[in-house]
């Protein structure tokens, strides 16, 4: 229905770990793939992430978590997004995440978990797929 298919992605870095090089690399790769990336910076609370996702009406939210706190942060962000009416917005996680946590996160409805070795092409492809089937009909 819409002519303009620009994909909007929120890249956020929740939690307390203090460097965002990885998140910036991803943000740049997504921009170079033609996406509009809203980058929120370091030390976001789950509340801040969910609120920004709502205001910016993004198709996809990507969290970068290196602190090991993913099992606390990710479900909380998902829950707050759902409470905000963002059930149709996909949530992705990137970072160092052990195998058993990956399946637990996926079981919670997290649309993708990307380890340090993932190529940006894979992430871009994944986001395009999610956006194509995602709700957000506006």
């Amino acid at each position, binding site marked *: 229905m819409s002519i303009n298919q620009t994909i909007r992605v929120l890249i956020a870095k929740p939690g307390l770990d203090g460097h965002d090089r990885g998140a910036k690399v991803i943000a740049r790769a997504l921009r170079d793939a033609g996406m509009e*990336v809203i980058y929120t910076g370091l030390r976001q609370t789950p509340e801040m992430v969910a609120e920004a996702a709502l205001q910016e009406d993004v198709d996809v939210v990507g969290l970068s978590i290196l602190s090991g706190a993913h099992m606390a942060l990710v479900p909380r962000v998902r829950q707050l997004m759902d409470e905000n009416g*963002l059930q149709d917005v996909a949530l992705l996680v990137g970072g160092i995440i052990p195998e058993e946590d990956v399946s637990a996160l996926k079981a919670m409805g997290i649309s993708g978990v990307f380890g340090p070795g993932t190529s940006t092409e894979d992430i871009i492809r994944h986001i395009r797929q999610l956006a194509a089937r995602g709700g957000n009909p506006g």
Partner: protein
Amino acid sequence: MEALVQAALNHDRRALARLLTVVENRREGVDTALAALFPHTGRAWIIGVTGAPGTGKSSLVNALAKTFRAAGRTVGIVAVDPTSPFSGGAIMGDRIRMRDLAGDRGVFIRSMATRGSLGGLSRATRDVIRVLDAAGFEIIFVETVGAGQSEVDIARAAQTTIVVEAPGLGDDVQAIKAGILEIADVLVVNKADRPGADNTARALKAMLEMGHPATRTDLISHHGRLMPAESAPGSSAASIWIPPVVSTVAPENTGIGDLVAALEAHHKYLIETQALDGLERQHIEIELYDRLQAALMARLLKGVPGEVFADVIHRIQTRELDPQSAVDAILSLPDQSC
């Protein structure tokens, strides 16, 4: 779409966000939605914030919004960032500096990329401002890309325009771009904690005093498609406003009280001299011409087959036809006005 409009008017934030997407992407039903919203617009105080990248615009908007929120006024923020000409994508990082506003339901922040607007103020930006206005935000900040035409264009949509300078960006008179002083209602020297800030402020003040800055009215009509013969009511008084120069350190909230006072003084001045009405009339005039131009162009392009254009371009290139004759020829094609 009607339900979405109603919900947005009733302060449903999810609906508002989705409506902004409809407007920005010009999805089906957009014009109906905007028409339904229009009677609810015209109430917000629209404040444009422009200046070179890195001068501290987002940090200032954050500090200003906090102050206005403390006074109980609701704030909408539109942060415009450049679209990459290579990929069509964008990275929008203004929210990084606006984290103090998180969790406040009296604030709504929306980032938008310039997309195809070539740096000028796009129709989408105007429409996004209008949606926030209709949704009841009392003050709307529009942070623009601090480069090119948008810097000057923001004065065509804002009632009060803040121009932000900072020391260390080639801190003298040459660094201050042409046209910038004329659109500024309030000048800010941010990063006043940095060396050279006093010089920048002095240079700005000197330029304001010695120059004969064109009135805002003159400038806007120069850049518009239209040159109104007579000035709008109140515009002669408009030339009396002398932009104050305010020094700030945005992250420390230093000077923000003075800046708010300067903004309020400008707003009060606009209202008391009736310049506000004249300004709005000009904005409407410019917008109408912009929209007419776009609509006529779209209609023309629909009526003239692509091959005709290709042929005409070829004939201009081979010097068979000059560009103006080509325009006349296209305009006189029989099917162009259908």
